[in-house]
């Protein structure tokens, strides 16, 4: 009897030891484990890098071809230069562009629809436009304008009394924000549940429409750089 107790205790201890050892191994592998959020993050970065690399390769090919052309003679050189200039002007927003996209109309809430309170609450504010523009940019918009004022990297959107200044030009309601890009993506990013349109609709009227062809004018103001100097390092 005594012997059998020792035997079973020895057996149980053996199993216990094994389990503890296993347990230890799995815990140490968990420590070096990675939450799946990181993987998602890396995948997202990889996708963007892939896109960037493809675009940069195209840019390299394009510039190489232009350089080659420029080496052939002075008239070809001028052509190559002009075509490069046109490309950069397109990126800068200095060229009129067209393409598919969306038209977002924002307007002050009609007086009879206002639930009361301060009437200023129901006017379109500069912040509303800023948020719409930011959302459109996030959804991949390539060119944006507000009431035909092209939005550049340095454009401001600023409330001044009853109107909004964009590129130092007075605009008044209704504000029509036009954007070129994938029309479906642009529209759904604004209209997503709990998104911007839903939020803004409590105060002002917002309407988003897809369009097959939108024309966005070039920036018409004067480009002046009094402070910035190129470092010639690209």
């Amino acid at each position, binding site marked *: 009897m005594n012997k059998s107790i020792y035997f*079973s*205790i020895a057996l149980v201890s053996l*199993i*216990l030891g094994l389990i503890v050892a*296993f*347990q230890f191994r*799995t*815990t140490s*592998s*968990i420590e070096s484990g*990675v*939450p799946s959020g990181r*993987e998602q993050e*890396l*995948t997202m*970065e*990889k996708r*963007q*890098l892939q896109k*960037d*690399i493809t*675009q*940069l390769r195209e840019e*390299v090919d394009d*510039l*190489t071809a232009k*350089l080659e052309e*420029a080496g052939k003679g002075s008239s070809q050189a001028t052509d*190559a*230069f002009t075509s*490069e*200039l046109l490309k*950069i002007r397109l*990126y*800068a*927003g*200095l*060229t009129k*562009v*067209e393409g598919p996209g969306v038209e977002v109309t924002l307007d002050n809430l009609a007086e009879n629809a206002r639930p009361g309170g301060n009437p200023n609450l129901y006017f379109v504010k*500069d912040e509303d436009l*800023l948020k719409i523009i*930011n959302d459109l940019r996030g959804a991949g918009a*390539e*060119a944006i304008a507000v009431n035909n004022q092209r939005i550049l*990297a*340095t*454009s*401001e959107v600023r409330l001044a009394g009853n109107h909004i*200044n964009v590129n130092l030009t007075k605009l008044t309601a209704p504000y029509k924000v036009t954007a*070129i890009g994938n029309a479906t993506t642009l529209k759904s990013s604004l209209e997503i549940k709990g998104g911007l349109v839903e939020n803004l609709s409590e105060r002002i009227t917002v309407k988003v429409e897809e369009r097959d062809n939108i024309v966005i004018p070039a920036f018409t103001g004067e*480009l002046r*750089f*009094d*402070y*910035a*100097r*190129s*470092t010639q390092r*690209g």
Partner: protein
Amino acid sequence: MRLKNYQWVFALMGLVLGIMLAFQFRFTREIHRTESVQRVQELSAEVNQMRQNHEALQTQVNNLRAELDNATPLNPVLRDELEKAKVEAGVSELSGPGVEVTLSDSNINLRPGQNPNLYVLHDEDLLKVLNEINAAGAEAVSINGQRLLATTEVRCTGPTIVLNKSKRLAPPFVITAIGNPDTLENSLKMKGGVAEALQVWGIQVSVKKIAQVTVPAYSGGIKFEYAKAAG
């Protein structure tokens, strides 16, 4: 008596074993949920490789642009036009006088029950600050070394923000802007201005005038898939 003792020992052993097994089971389940470590390591190595590739290509593009500039005839009007277009497009590195604006999250100690989300920096705060900087005539702007383009979005994702589609930035956010330093500083710090509004929530906005700041070129490819030049 003797038999009872022996039963007790077994019951105890069984209990311990059961608990161990249950733990073991839970851990194994968690392991299944964590993505395979190896896969992430591979992915990470791949991304690093691509980053280097990307950087090399970027340098190549910059060199080619400079070469093309030198290879083409010296027409000062056209040259000036290209230079300006490059500044606005964000494809050249620039330097000049300007400001450095540092934004950091609130240093207020929250009392229980207060909504902590109100006291952290949001994308709309950054949007307002950037808009103010633009209105004050900034010529080129970058945040934490990322150049702002006409297509740059600012997205708040947890404690970090995302710019230029996938460039993730962590606080503190340092905005570098080239322009008239006095105008830029005044427009941010004026009474009732954006810095004052953010201070209510404890968000720190510090503006430093600097005689010479550098704003980098956009580091990425630009390509329009939808927008085409119209006559």
